[in-house]
């Protein structure tokens, strides 16, 4: 569904993303993890049209979307959320979600109705007529999700949708994301909350210093020494193995 080939981006002298290639197949939940500053959000920005890549291509459903205008990419069915939540503060929750619905629906009444449905799916139904500015952090994250969902996406890019949530709230979101995938939406997510990554995703890419250093199933990734070193420093894998008597290391 999504094929990224050799994507690169530099800011001044810094290579934020360096020749990254990855692939997301339809109907899967794929996770992109890596230490802070690895370039994950930059990668998302390039895929969704918010940044122009210096090199490489992005193909979505077989169509080359590299450098396409951001609002057009949404029309094609690729939608992203933001790491720093960006609600339409002056509008109600319903009106917020309706903007997403309007990607597919022209009539105001239909969009508002769809908004109510989507709100149900993310457990925001009770706050439908509240100003978005009044939501808690958890509520705003779910609003981001709801807006993206309302566009009826084929591929959903979730950027740290679980950051800053309590374990209970995180669990709620995990269920919601699973339900979203089960309804036919492919998901590519950036996440730091490891328990969520391990439980949700079927495939994991690890990004470090702008490059993919590992790729595979969650359990394999967790044991991969390169991944451990990316998070904990050079030689950490060996030290940990020695200290624990060759016990496989667990994810951060």
């Amino acid at each position: 569904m999504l094929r990224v080939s050799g994507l690169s981006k530099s800011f001044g002298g810094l290579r934020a993303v360096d020749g990254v290639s990855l692939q997301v197949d339809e109907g899967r939940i794929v996770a992109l993890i890596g230490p802070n500053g690895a370039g994950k959000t930059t990668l998302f920005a390039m895929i969704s049209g918010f940044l122009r890549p210096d090199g490489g291509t992005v193909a979505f459903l077989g169509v080359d979307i590299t450098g396409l205008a951001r609002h057009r990419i949404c029309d094609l069915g690729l939608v992203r959320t933001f790491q720093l939540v960006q609600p339409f503060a002056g509008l109600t929750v319903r009106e917020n979600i309706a903007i997403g619905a309007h990607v597919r629906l022209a009539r105001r009444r239909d969009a508002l109705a769809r908004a109510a449905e989507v709100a149900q799916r993310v457990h925001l139904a009770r706050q439908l007529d509240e100003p978005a500015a009044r939501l808690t952090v958890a509520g705003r994250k779910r609003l981001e999700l709801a807006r993206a969902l309302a566009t009826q996406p084929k591929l959903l890019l979730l950027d740290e949708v679980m950051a800053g949530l309590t374990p209970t709230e995180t669990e709620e979101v995990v269920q919601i994301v699973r339900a979203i995938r089960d309804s036919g939406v492919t998901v590519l997510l950036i996440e730091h909350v490891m328990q969520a990554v391990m439980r949700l995703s079927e495939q994991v890419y690890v990004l470090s210093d702008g490059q993919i250093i590992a790729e595979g199933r969650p359990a394999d990734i967790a044991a991969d020494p390169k991944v451990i070193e990316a998070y904990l420093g050079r030689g950490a894998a060996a030290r940990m193995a020695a200290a624990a008597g060759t016990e496989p290391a667990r994810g951060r």
Partner: protein
Amino acid sequence: MGRNAVVGALALGLALAVPLIVQSGFWLNLLTLMLFFGYLGGSWNILGGYAGQFSFGHAAFFGTGAYVTAILQLSLGLNPWVTMLFAAAGGASVGLVTGFLSFRYGLRGSYFALITLAFSEVLRVLATTAKITNGGQGLVIPLRTGLGNFQFAGKAGYYYVALAMTLISLAAAWCIEHSRFGARLMAVRENEDAAEALGVNAFGHKLAAITISGMMAGAGGTFYVQMFFYVDPAIAYGPAMSVESLLVSIIGGMGTVAGPLLGSIVLHLVGDLTRKVLANAPGISLVLYGVLLILILRYLPNGLIGGARALAGRVGLGTARSGSTG
């Protein structure tokens, strides 16, 4: 919704009956001006309130419409009603060009406000020096009374035209609030990046808003010329029209349907009262406008309408509605 419709119908009936009830030429004139500036404010509101781009140079559109009307009548003898179409087109064009430049280069907030001011100042100086506008002396349109010529002997004619224009501007605002275009416009106002991520072409929407705003203001220019028979660079492109259009909208409530009209009524009542009390002292009413603006910004940032809604909400009336400027 049912209650609103009944209130609206009553208000409309009352408005239509006004010239029959009110005999005083002075009051009819005042009401006409209230309606006109409600209309002009409404045209500002489309760009300022709904799209969230504050223009300090709304006169650029208004003045262009006024001059187009006057010039076409004087040089080609066109019928004033016909010139109104050209005036609207003129205003729309100025909006399109200035909007394209400003938005293409990413100007927002204060920078956008300043550049709109600069544009209208450029036009003002051009109008002062150009031959076609008769420079600083201005243009006078020929007297030729009659409905077909958009000139009325009594005040009632102008009142009804202003009323019609006001209704159009209210309808335009209402349509915006209940359409996908308007929802997307407001999304751009709240957060441009998030809107784009949700498929909204922000540049296109802002450009559409400024063009509509310009078109309406241009037509407003025609009305003004027909009512006052005269236009010069200061009237057309000076700060007075720009300031008044934004004042009525902000005081009444940006991003609302009735805000500009309400603001215009309040502002003109205040202005008129002070003129009566202080015997035509120059400038005092504008001082009060400035004070009113600051008071509104401080205590009622959503304008009078916003304040009324908050009050209604606290007392338990009406349904919950989002604030327009957050």
